[in-house]
């Protein structure tokens, strides 16, 4: 008998239980209940988010596969496709930072190679509490070394990403991992179990008791007792995954299999039922044939284990031997554990007894979707929330303070722990606006940017989400790539709180609107709810992963100043927008106001124009203005440039000087061009309706900014560079 307590432990409501009984026509046994519990968890079933996610545009002429598979697929021409997705591993990374992050990498890699693609790049979007707290530092060290430990070993470069710091992540860090893969269009594989009589093979690591109910854990709030959940976190083995990757790609390349699915969340349960459902078939599995790491495991444990580095393969009976031979070459077992059958039921036996007999459709597709109540907060943030802010006395000091703020400071401490060069495709090292990867044997290149500013989304989730899309696209355009597809990772609090649900709705609306405006489809993603610890929700944090294509890598543009004497041009307009800025957070200790406005049409014009100007060879460097505004952007151009050339600029705007220097008005890019090309550049900009002003020249050893001739700030590049470069490592110096 299933009682209320058992249901609670499984995160199911009594209504949901009633539904299950109706669907299978009897009371489920405990194993079956466990299966429903994970498959209908928020993590696997998307029960709170599904009704909203439908609003996202998913169509486009290059889309080969949209949401619903392990990852999205886009056609990039020349018979090749890209396969990409982002996924969160927030809860495990808080409980056990190293393994949580490591298995986050392992999981997303499997999502990519299970489709026949070789993973070519990983990027991470990380959110931690401020690094002055030793607990946050320890989480961060664990997460970074976990990502490094897995990615470096398996040989997929971690080429970029972002790291933000805010106290709202003190007890709930975010670890979102993006992976990009490359495949031949005619060698894509899907998670389909087709053809009655075909064999089901289990490959990879043995099944242990680790990670049981990981998906259910990720679908609940955390209290103080999270330490006890450590056994729910899986342990990664990148070496095993490397073997699995090579063996899987080899059997796929040889055309030996029908379908393949990784065992991620909900392990064997999810992979067997989903594959059967997608193939419109049933499946029989004999659990005694499943390789097990420990003795005495129950069917419940075997089915719900989330042991890593395992895959399920469906192959025709006559191909089984050939598949097994390839796995043996890579020192992996590939036992047959079941068969595809007619009838749409999953029948699972253990020691000769049927322990599960349920319709796959019910498990996979009939998880209830909830349109949960949502409520806007009583008072919406507005620009009027900002109290009158005193002007700082010394803008140079503020500038240095911003450069040293952990969110803006150089992240080399993080990315030099990642092998970002293996596979020899990395054309831009981490730190550029977007990661840039060449495609061997072609002139083309792929660019990727991850973006999401949760200060903005907290103040105005809709505008914040639009900005995230716009900025990720702007980053791609800054290196010369055209955005082609989107994946998103939506990190929110408890969806049962109406305010959180409102944030979610608003953010999805904003994202949908922006993606439509830019004409880029969303091909998949991941929702992470219940980012609440001890009752506190994180800021709503939608993270966008956008991929772009550059037709000719020789035309790629990097952010660094190229030479002294070049013209510095500011695209876009400066406005008095200080709400949600890093400046007011750091200097005035405020997270308030409204975030900067986002005019999608204006943004689109800006991006189209910049691509055109780059195509005409007019642009020597380009960098988008983000946290810290104009001065920080100029500094970064100097830091990335040859010989750390400085610049002298003079602005004619009549604005509060702090807004001019540090405001985060959107749709702005700073570029440099040869003086000889300046006239043509400005003329074209005017013709395209894009505001563009020549604001100064590169050169000298300082970063100097004037307003109408009055010098606001002059700081030596070297001094600024040290502030920016040393900030993060200083937190991690051994204290004696």
């Amino acid at each position, binding site marked *: 008998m299933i009682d209320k307590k058992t249901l609670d432990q499984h995160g199911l409501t009594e209504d949901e239980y009633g539904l299950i009984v109706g669907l299978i026509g009897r009371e489920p046994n405990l194993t079956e209940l466990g299966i429903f519990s994970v498959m209908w968890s928020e993590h696997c079933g998307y029960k709170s988010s599904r009704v909203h996610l439908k609003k996202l545009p998913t169509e486009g002429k290059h889309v080969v596969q949209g949401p619903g598979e392990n990852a999205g697929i886009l056609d990039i021409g020349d018979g090749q496709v890209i396969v990409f997705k982002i996924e969160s591993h927030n809860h495990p990374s808080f409980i056990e930072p190293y393994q949580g992050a490591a298995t986050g990498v392992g999981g997303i890699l499997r999502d990519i190679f299970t489709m026949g693609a070789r993973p070519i790049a990983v990027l991470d979007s990380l959110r931690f509490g401020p690094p002055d707290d030793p607990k946050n530092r320890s989480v961060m060290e664990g997460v970074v*070394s976990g990502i490094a430990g897995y990615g470096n*070993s398996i*040989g997929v470069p971690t080429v970029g990403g972002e790291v933000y710091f805010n106290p709202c992540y003190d007890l709930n860090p975010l670890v979102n991992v993006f992976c990009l893969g490359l495949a031949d269009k005619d060698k894509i594989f899907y998670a389909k179990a087709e053809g009655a009589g075909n064999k089901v093979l289990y490959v990879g690591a043995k099944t242990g008791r680790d990670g049981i109910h990981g998906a259910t854990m990720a679908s609940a709030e955390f209290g103080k007792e999270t330490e006890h959940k450590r056994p729910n976190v899986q342990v990664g083995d990148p070496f095993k995954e490397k073997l699995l990757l090579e063996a899987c790609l080899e059997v796929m390349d040889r055309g030996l299999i029908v379908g393949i699915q990784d065992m991620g969340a909900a392990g064997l349960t999810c992979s067997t039922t989903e594959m059967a459902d997608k193939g419109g078939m049933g499946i029989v599995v004999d659990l005694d044939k499943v390789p097990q790491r420990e003795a005495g495991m129950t069917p419940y444990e075997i089915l719900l284990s989330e042991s890593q580095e395992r895959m399920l393969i469906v192959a025709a009976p006559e191909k089984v031997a050939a598949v097994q031979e390839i796995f043996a070459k890579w020192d992996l077992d590939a036992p047959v554990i079941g068969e595809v059958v007619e009838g749409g039921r999953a029948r699972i036996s253990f020691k000769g007894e049927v322990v599960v007999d349920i319709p796959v459709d019910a498990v996979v597709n009939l998880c209830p979707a909830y349109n949960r109540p949502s409520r806007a907060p009583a008072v919406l943030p507005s620009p009027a929330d900002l109290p009158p802010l005193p002007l700082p006395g010394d803008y140079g000091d503020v500038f240095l303070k911003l450069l040293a703020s952990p969110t803006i400071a150089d992240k080399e401490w993080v990315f030099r722990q990642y092998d970002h060069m*293996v*596979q020899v495709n990395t054309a831009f090292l981490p730190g550029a606006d977007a990661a840039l990867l*060449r495609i061997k044997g072609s002139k083309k290149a792929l660019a990727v940017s991850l973006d999401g500013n949760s200060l903005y989304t907290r103040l105005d989730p809709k505008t914040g989400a639009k900005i995230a899309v716009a900025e990720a696209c702007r980053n791609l355009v800054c290196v010369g790539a055209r955005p082609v597809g989107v994946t998103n990772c939506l990190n929110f609090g408890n969806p049962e709180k109406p305010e959180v649900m409102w944030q979610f709705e608003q953010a999805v609306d904003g994202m949908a609107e922006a993606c439509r405006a830019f004409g880029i489809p969303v091909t998949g993603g991941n929702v992470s709810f219940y980012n609440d610890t001890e009752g506190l929700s994180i800021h709503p944090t939608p993270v966008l992963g956008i991929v772009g294509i550059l037709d000719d890598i020789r035309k790629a543009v990097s952010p660094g100043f190229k030479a002294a004497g070049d013209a510095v041009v500011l695209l876009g307009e400066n406005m008095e927008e200080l709400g949600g800025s890093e400046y007011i957070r750091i200097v005035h200790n405020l997270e308030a106001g409204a975030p900067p406005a986002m005019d999608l049409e204006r943004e689109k014009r800006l991006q189209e124009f910049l691509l055109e100007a780059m195509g005409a060879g007019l642009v020597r460097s380009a960098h988008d203005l983000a946290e810290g505004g104009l001065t920080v952007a100029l500094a970064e151009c100097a830091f990335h440039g040859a010989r750390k050339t400085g610049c002298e600029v003079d602005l004619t705007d009549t604005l509060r000087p702090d807004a001019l220097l540090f405001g985060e008005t959107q749709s702005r890019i700073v570029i440099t061009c040869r003086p000889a090309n300046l006239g043509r550049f400005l003329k074209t900009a005017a013709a395209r309706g894009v505001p563009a002003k020549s604001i100064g020249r590169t050169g000298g050893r300082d970063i100097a900014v004037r307003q109408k001739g009055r010098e606001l700030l002059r700081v030596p590049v070297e001094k600024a560079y040290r502030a920016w470069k040393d900030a993060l490592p200083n937190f991690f110096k051994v204290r004696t």
Partner: protein
Amino acid sequence: MKFGVVQFPGSNCDFDTFHVLRNVMKRETALLWHKDHDLQGVDCVVLPGGFSYGDYLRSGAIARFSPLMQEVKAFARAGGHVLGICNGFQILLELGLLPGAMIRNKNLKFLCQHVHIRIENEKTDFTRAGRKGQVLRIPIAHFDGNYYAAARVLKDIERHRQVVFRYCDAEGNITEEANVNGSLGNIAGIRNREGNVLGLMPHPERASEALLGSKDGRTIFASLILSLERRKPARRPVLRERARHD
């Protein structure tokens, strides 16, 4: 001439090295499987970077026992050229083909970054395309690249001019700051006394195309080609014979 790149389970720079030797240096290149006993008649064996067998024990400690490595050992003892890059260098140390050992980087973190190395000995088969004192900009990517050897061994390898590369700054000065992983004597690469085996921690295959930021790594591959294409590879048949009895 023909290169052979060894594939261990867990190698991850095998395809990169193969790509550069074949598509950039334009030389015939074979992939050599760790379970085989066949060196496929190559003139130079390259042990690529990666995490052979996961490197869960000491880096390179398991790879030395693989079937193919018995052939590689015999090949090297017979004068065949062997280049170990990163994990390949670690394996050569474990195998005893080169002296010394690797310990954790001094900051106890994995390090991936461009570094500068100075050619200390330009009269080797691995550096003859370069100049004495030439500074190469080549990336490293390792956890265990902190070279260590007992004082007596160190003295010995210095005396026999076996140190081929040292970490230096952009101007070629051997400084403590440039010694990112903490190696004794800033050692980045050494050869054996006979001069046919070289190991280095930096990855020349990652610095062989302008698009990726540096072409300096080609100096090492070009040197090998220069050295080996001058000779007649007469030793191969003999080698097969020996290997069988090993």
